[in-house]
């Protein structure tokens, strides 16, 4: 099962390394990992996507809870939640056909063309990871020049909050 785990960590030297190290040492997999400061300057929020059965996820959360830098851990996939990922895709768009096709696809996926040159489009797309996957699959025939994905961020739906 795919789980999205949110982790509030203290902005300390080596915190990211320790969390990554835990995953390597115990052989847990990391599908994606994002880190950025929060509204509280002393804290960062990490969003980690991992795959594992219930027992592994339970261990991951328990092991994370043992780290000093970790303030709070929450598996946001255990309840209703919202997840988003952003992707930038650069594609070959040198012909009229290609330009039309990419514009149309971008519209269908509610994306935006951010940058245009004579030969390329750079498209921005936001959504769930599976939506981004779907887009890549659709343009697969016209292999993208470059793809960059932000990794997933997520938040619980409704009144549920991740509080300290």
């Amino acid at each position, binding site marked *: 099962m795919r789980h999205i785990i949110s982790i509030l960590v*203290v902005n300390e030297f080596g915190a990211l*390394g320790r969390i990554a190290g835990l995953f390597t040492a115990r052989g847990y997999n990391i599908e994606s990992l994002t880190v950025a400061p929060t509204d509280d300057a002393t804290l960062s929020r990490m969003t980690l996507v991992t795959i594992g059965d219930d027992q592994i996820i339970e261990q991951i959360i328990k*092991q994370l809870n043992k780290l*000093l*830098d*970790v303030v709070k851990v929450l598996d946001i996939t255990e309840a209703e939640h919202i997840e988003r990922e952003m992707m930038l895709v650069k594609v070959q768009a040198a012909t009229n056909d290609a330009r039309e096709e990419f514009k149309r696809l971008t519209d269908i996926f509610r994306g935006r063309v951010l940058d245009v040159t004579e030969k390329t489009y750079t498209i921005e797309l936001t959504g769930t990871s599976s939506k981004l996957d779907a887009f890549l699959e659709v343009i697969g025939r016209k292999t993208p020049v470059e793809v960059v994905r932000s990794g997933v961020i997520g938040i619980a739906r409704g009144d549920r909050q991740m509080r300290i």
Partner: protein
Amino acid sequence: MTEQAPRIPHSTQHPLAGEQMSGAEMVVQVLADEGVDTVFGYSGGAILPTYDAVFRYNERQRGDTGGAPMNLVVPANEQGAGFMAAGYARSTGRVGVFLVTSGPGATNTVTPIRDCMADSVPVVAITGQVARGAMGTDAFQEAPIVNIMGNCAKHVFLVTNPEDVEATMRTAFEVARSGRPGPVVVDLPKDVQNWVGEFHGEGLLDVRGYRQRMESLRQAKLSERKCRQFFDLLGQSSRPLLYVGGGVVSGDAGDDLTAFAKAYGIPVVTTVMGLGAIDTTDDLCLHMLGMHGTAYANYAVEDCDFIIAVGARFDDRVAAKAELFAPMAEHVAHIDIDAAEIGKVKLVDWAHVGDAGRSLRQLVEFGRSEGFRRDFTPWLEHVRGLRGSYPMNFDRETPLIQPQEVLERLNTLTRGEAVIATGVGQHQMFAAQYLDFHRPRQWLTSGSMGTMGFGLPAAIGAQFANPDALVIDVDGDGSIRMNLGEMETVTTYGLPVKVLLLNNSCDGMVRQWQRLYFEDRFSGSDKSLHRKDFIKAAESDGFEFARRVTDKAELGEALKAFVGFEGPAFLEVVIDPDAGVYPMVGPGMSYREMVTGDHIPSRDYGDSRDGPERLAPSEAF
């Protein structure tokens, strides 16, 4: 977990508060405030300011106040310092401290740090670091300690802001001893040691998440409902068994465990780390379980219908295959201070995360208030029968000296009162099997990491912490070589440490496995051509008592003289290289497949018990 020193109450100001001090002086002052009386370590460039501060602290203590100085114990190798601090901590429950320089000094302590982590031993390691400005430049004696130790220690602090020095040091002690104890490293850049600022005498780092979790752990009480559920399970059981690990020792819960066991007459098996949690000579104690546990302990595990695990973690030397462990147990209860151990290996019916002693006391109180009664006498008779039918034994006829006999005789002499440290291998298992321990913290062994070379420095550290105790390092010829430099440390400090070397001219445990699984190909484990004369080595290190025994007839007298010798003593006993450790539950096997060897009777299960040979070498570990 044991409070080391009376903490200075927040209302009274530290007598030195407001004084200008260097970072190094603050480090030493916090050590003193924490009640540290002995620091193990080796100096070097990046830690010089702190060594100097220790020197000056001691000079001041001797001069003005006449206070106790801080012992500085210098090993031959930093690894020795780490294990000395570990021996100090394991034998007392207080936080052990070691102080080493940057780069190689620090990396030499990676093994003891990991060892302390694996066995939950509270130590604080202070490692010098190159000055902040030089970090990351591949400076002389620079190593990325945060990265290296981050994967081994409970936590690593790198002091980047000198204002945080004293708070970091205090927090290091708090973290080392709270919850599940463990090693904490403080990486201290040289310029931070030289920085001068105001000493506050109080304050901790903001580790809010951790502190919150520790607080709720301290608050964790068994609810009435949980207590009732536990006694429901116990009430349904007719063959309960306590499976006790190192958590009971490190949680100082030995008395509570014993009281619990006695309250209901429940027999106890202990892990290698749990030896001494209950007096091993107690009628309820079945000694050690597991790969090399006693046959009667392992049979009791096979027969029990309710496992009550306390401070134990079902590791692979106990439960190689979790589903085959205690196959008749209808219920498993688990008490541990570390939530991550609950359900990690074995699914349990009843679990409580909290302090072992407190939990056991609560259960006893609840049982008493509810008037819980259940007669486990038939079961107790059964396990007594197991002890009678499958006792430990070995080849008593051969003229070759058997290691078991050496330890049996040692046990008669020490009567379970000695503090025993060991290396790792056959001698360690023989010592675990044949020695008695009346109390926790008498048995110091590298259980989880299995670090050869642990014994001698651990014995040194324990002797410093317990100057009046009889401290014996039971060692093997392979293990002792690993830290042989510390022989000199024993005599330098005039410690009455006794070193009992069981010499079989090989790495015995490796050899045993090579016999079992690798068709007698003794690759890399044979030492019969090694030319070390251990007696000469001991003599050259200043041991006045250094004897070798090769004749069985001499053994009793030699051991007596050895144990009775006043100062440091070294006794080498040349033993049968083919003595194997039995019983043995092969790796990946169930207890049903236990092999008891030629001298211990075993159960006939009447099915294909074809021994450990069945496992492919690649599966065995």
